[in-house]
Each structure stands twice: as structure tokens, then as C-alpha cells.
């Protein structure tokens, strides 16, 4: 399959037509969707691919010898290879594991690697800006094994403060780090962390849920040992996530969930696990979702990830300009406002003294969808000294008109609450 990649900026107007959900109106207004960091929308191509799969060739994978089962298996394994190519995995056919979501992928590592291969008396180093999905599995592991948890702090510039990195890394066996904050938009400068971790003999588990949908990712260049992300934030369906891991690590790890598919042999007194990657895919996997994710990757590749990144950097820059110019005294942005290529299209805001929920409620009446709350990052919210923020996040279908609508709606909210 050859993909034609266009040049120049994204044509947002044309792109929006590909997304059925964006054609509808909300409260009588154009639907302005600014919550893609929570979950993105899907283009027609993804919906069609999943429908086509169900209508023509659905059967369980790796089991039937009949034609449609062979075809279902082929499409499922093709999706695995497409995912692997998308993140430049050296061996997609064994290193890409399908999970339910990024949370399950991280739990897989915590259970399998954390309980069995993390050496005794080694600490775990996380960061203050992690999503709960990259904290709670490690808290559970820590409670079970008595492992010490440490945290890299977030500086006042909303980026990770690495000044104490060497001291914090001493005695660490595993590092869990977000590649991009879902609250601040900060993109992590991974290389010093990966270097220090590997020098200490630690493995690095990267939560790339916010990065893979928006940037070109090369797991070899990142240097991490595990990478987790999810389908529904990258134009794909819900119910499918991905764990990529180095083959030698995955090979050494015991299975996570037990059941069908993940075994080579089962006796009444024991079992032999299957080969990679199926060793970690117990039960019937998300087959149609894998097909949909494959289509989503095809869609992103046809746009070109560098164009996607440039579009979002441009939009973030315009958003900061427009919002600060019009609402500067009333608005606080939690996240970097300089060096924009090193941050993603996520803007966490405080507006006047309005609670984020109240702001989001007024924006909803204007047809605008934003997230309000703690964004599953309560430790970071405590660090920021707030209980909740309002968050607007951008993707390929957002344009400057969405920013204008947001800016106008802030005035409406200000007038409403007086």
C-alpha cells in the first residue's frame, strides 16, 4: 500500500468533512470539539474499515481453518505490523502487543515485569506529571513488594526539573515517565532520563498516550524499553491499546492474564505459554478495533505526522496569542508558553475565579466541548495548587475558528457569572 503524503498546511475544512460527528450541531451551534486529549473523533475511513470487516470477514483469529477466519487473522496481524511500522519498532511481529487501552498496557508491565523481573530493593522513579494510569499500577506494586517510589519534580516552568536526576536515579530499577503531559502539554526531554536510567541499569516505561497521536515517534530514537499508547486518542476506536516492548524483555517476562490464545499447551497440572506477542493476548482480542486502528494509522500517515505536528504547534501558538490578547488579565495558562515545538496542543486554563466545571458548562451551551476536572492527574493538580482546570486540546480537525469560538465563549461565561 502506498500512501500519498501531501505537502503544506492541513486543509482543516476538507478534513472536517471526513468526520461524521463534526457535521452535527450541538445546542443549535456548530460542534466545536476541543477534547481530543481525552478522546479523539474518528474519520469515516475508520468507521468504514470496521464495518467492512464485520460485514465481510469476521471470525475468531488464530483458530479457524476456513477462509474468513484466515482473512480475519491476516487483517489482525497486518494491523500489528502497521502499528509497529508507525512507531518504527524493530520487530513489529513480536514486539507489538494489543491490549484494551494504555492503562492495561502499563498494568501489564507492572504485573509481569514489576512483580517478577524488577530486582529486590530497587526503587521505581516516576514523575509528578504522570496520569493516574502511570502512577496507580506502581503504587499497587509498591504496596505489594515494598518497593520505594520516587518522583521527578515539575519545575515552575511546567517542565520536569532534572537537576536532581542523578541522585534520584541511584538505586532505581524502573522509570515510568510520560512522554507528554495530558494537563500541561509539556513534551518530555527523554534522552537525559533514558541515559541516566540505562546507566543505572533501569528499564524505562514510557506512557506515550498523548505523543503517538500527535508526533512522529521512533521507539529506537527514544531509547525507551516499553511504550504504551491507546487507539481512541489517535482517530481509532475505543477498546484497543498498544504495548511495545523490547523483544528480549518481553521474552523474559511471564504472562499477564491467563486464558485462551496465550498458551501453547495446557495440562491439568500446568501450562506452557505461547510465543510473543500472543503470550500477552489472553482471550479473543479486539479484532475489529485492530482493523480500525490500522485505518486510523493509514489516515494519519496520509496526512503526514510532521504536518500534523506543525498544524498543532501553529494552532497552539495562535490560541495562546488570541486568548492572552483578549483575556490576558483574566486567564492563566498552566503549561509552557514558549518553545512551542516542545509542547503539544493541550491548554489547561484557569479563567477568572470560575470553577472549571462552571466554565465548561457555559461553554457547552455555546456548542464547545472542553474537559474540566483533574484530568486523572491529581498529584500534578496538587503541585499546581488547584483542584481542577479547564482544558482545551487540539487535533487535526481543529482550526482557528475553534479558538475564536472558545475566546468568544469566555466572554459569555464572564458575563453569565458576573
Amino acid at each position, binding site marked *: 500500500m502506498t500512501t500519498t503524503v501531501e505537502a503544506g498546511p492541513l486543509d482543516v475544512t476538507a478534513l472536517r468533512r471526513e468526520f461524521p460527528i463534526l457535521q452535527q450541531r450541538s445546542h443549535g451551534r456548530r460542534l466545536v470539539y476541543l477534547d481530543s486529549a481525552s478522546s479523539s473523533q474518528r474519520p469515516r475511513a475508520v468507521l468504514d474499515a470496521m464495518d467492512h470487516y464485520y460485514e465481510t470477514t469476521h471470525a475468531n483469529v488464530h483458530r479457524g481453518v476456513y477462509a474468513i477466519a484466515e482473512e480475519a487473522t491476516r487483517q489482525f496481524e497486518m494491523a500489528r505490523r502497521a502499528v509497529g511500522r508507525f512507531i518504527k519498532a524493530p520487530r513489529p511481529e513480536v514486539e507489538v502487543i494489543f491490549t484494551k487501552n494504555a492503562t492495561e498496557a502499563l498494568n501489564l508491565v507492572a504485573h509481569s515485569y514489576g512483580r517478577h523481573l524488577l530486582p529486590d530493593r530497587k526503587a521505581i522513579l516516576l514523575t509528578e506529571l504522570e496520569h493516574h494510569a502511570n502512577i496507580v499500577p506502581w503504587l499497587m506494586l509498591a504496596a505489594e513488594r515494598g518497593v520505594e517510589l520516587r518522583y521527578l519534580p515539575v519545575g515552575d516552568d511546567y517542565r520536569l526539573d532534572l537537576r536532581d536526576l542523578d541522585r534520584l536515579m541511584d538505586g532505581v530499577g524502573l522509570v515510568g515517565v510520560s512522554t507528554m503531559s495530558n494537563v500541561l502539554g509539556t513534551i518530555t526531554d527523554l534522552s537525559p532520563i533514558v541515559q541516566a536510567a540505562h546507566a543505572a541499569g533501569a528499564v524505562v516505561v514510557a506512557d506515550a498516550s498523548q505523543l503517538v497521536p500527535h508526533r512522529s515517534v521512533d521507539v529506537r530514537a527514544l531509547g525507551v524499553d516499553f511504550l504504551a499508547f491507546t487507539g481512541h486518542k489517535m482517530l481509532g476506536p475505543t477498546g484497543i491499546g498498544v504495548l511495545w516492548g523490547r523483544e528480549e524483555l518481553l521474552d523474559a517476562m511471564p504472562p499477564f492474564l491467563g486464558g485462551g490464545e496465550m498458551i501453547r499447551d495446557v495440562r491439568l497440572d500446568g501450562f506452557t505459554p505461547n510465543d510473543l506477542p500472543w503470550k500477552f493476548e489472553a482471550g479473543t482480542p479486539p479484532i475489529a478495533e485492530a482493523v480500525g486502528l490500522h485505518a486510523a494509522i493509514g489516515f494519519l500517515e496520509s496526512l503526514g505526522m510532521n504536518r500534523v505536528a506543525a498544524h498543532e504547534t501553529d494552532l497552539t501558538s495562535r490560541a495562546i496569542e488570541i486568548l492572552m490578547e483578549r483575556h490576558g488579565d483574566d486567564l492563566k495558562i498552566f503549561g509552557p508558553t514558549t518553545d512551542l515545538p516542545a509542547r503539544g496542543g493541550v491548554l489547561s486554563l484557569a479563567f477568572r475565579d470560575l*470553577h472549571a466545571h462552571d466554565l465548561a458548562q457555559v461553554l457547552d451551551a455555546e456548542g464547545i466541548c472542553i474537559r474540566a476536572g483533574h484530568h486523572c492527574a491529581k498529584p500534578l493538580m496538587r503541585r499546581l495548587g488547584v483542584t481542577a482546570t479547564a482544558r482545551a486540546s487540539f487535533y487535526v480537525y481543529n482550526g482557528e475558528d475553534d479558538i475564536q469560538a472558545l475566546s468568544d465563549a469566555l466572554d459569555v461565561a464572564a458575563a453569565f457569572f458576573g
Partner: protein
Amino acid sequence: MAGLEDLYREIILDHYRSPRNRGELAVPPAHRVEGFNPLCGDEVVVYLEVNDGVLTDLRIAGQGCSISQSSASMMSAAVKGRPVEQARKLIRSFKAMMSIHEHSLGGEDSTEDPEDQSEADTLKPEDLGELAALQGVVKFPVRIKCATLSWNALAQGLDEIAAGVLPLDRT
């Protein structure tokens, strides 16, 4: 479709802007209860003093959205100085008013709420005074937890006092 004015009635905004009974009480003799809304991270702290079966004093601390703050403020005004049994009846009535949304979810209990059995001992929304203004919240199901946050904390506090739990017993 429900409009913003259904949610943000003037009396609600008034309690939000000028919250009643805001502050803290010394513990002990007062009892302190915290309520968290896991959805948004809001927290409310209710301080209550019960003497001879009467809720003699009550203060509200913590932070939250206009709905949780005004609901707490209106609650404090409604129950302060009342006998505990009246406060409990108000809690039941308020929560019954807030549970109407279950019908819209089409669950098995959607037509027959088990709590209806105690209906005889609850007040109708129209008998709840200014608390009835919060009725519009049920049209915005996500916000119901905001409205009930302080009420759940108050109920927990009254239960703990009745059970003889001292504030220091809890960790």
C-alpha cells in the same frame, strides 16, 4: 433541551457569591467530615455540632464549583438549628429529588425506586423551599454529584455522631 438557566437559578448564584455559614469549628467539640467528588477533585468539609438531638451549629469549608458550593450553603441554612431527625428528613428528601435521573438511564429500577418506600417520610420538592431551585441539576446528570456532595458528608457526619465515632478515630 435544558438551558443554562435551568441549572444556574438566581438563588443558586446568590449562595455561590455569598455563601452562608462558611468557616470552621473547633474539633472537638465539633465533628468534622470531608466529602470528595472524584470526578472533579472538589472537596467539601462539613463541621457539625450536635447537642441534645439538635444540630446546633454547622460550618462549611473546602472548595468547589458553583453547584457544590451553593448546595452546601443552602443546606447549611436549611438544617442549622434544626433537630437531627428533621435534618435527616431533609437529606432524604433532597437526595430523592436528585435521584430522578435514574429514570432516564432506563435501569431495572427506573420505574420502581426502592427508596420510594420511604416516600411517605420525604418532602416533595415544592415543600423544600429554596432548595427546590437545585431541582434543575437533575437535567445535567454529571452535576448531580456536585449537588449531593455536602449532603452525603452531612449524612455521614450524623451517622458517625450517632455511632459515637470520635473525629480522632478516623484516619
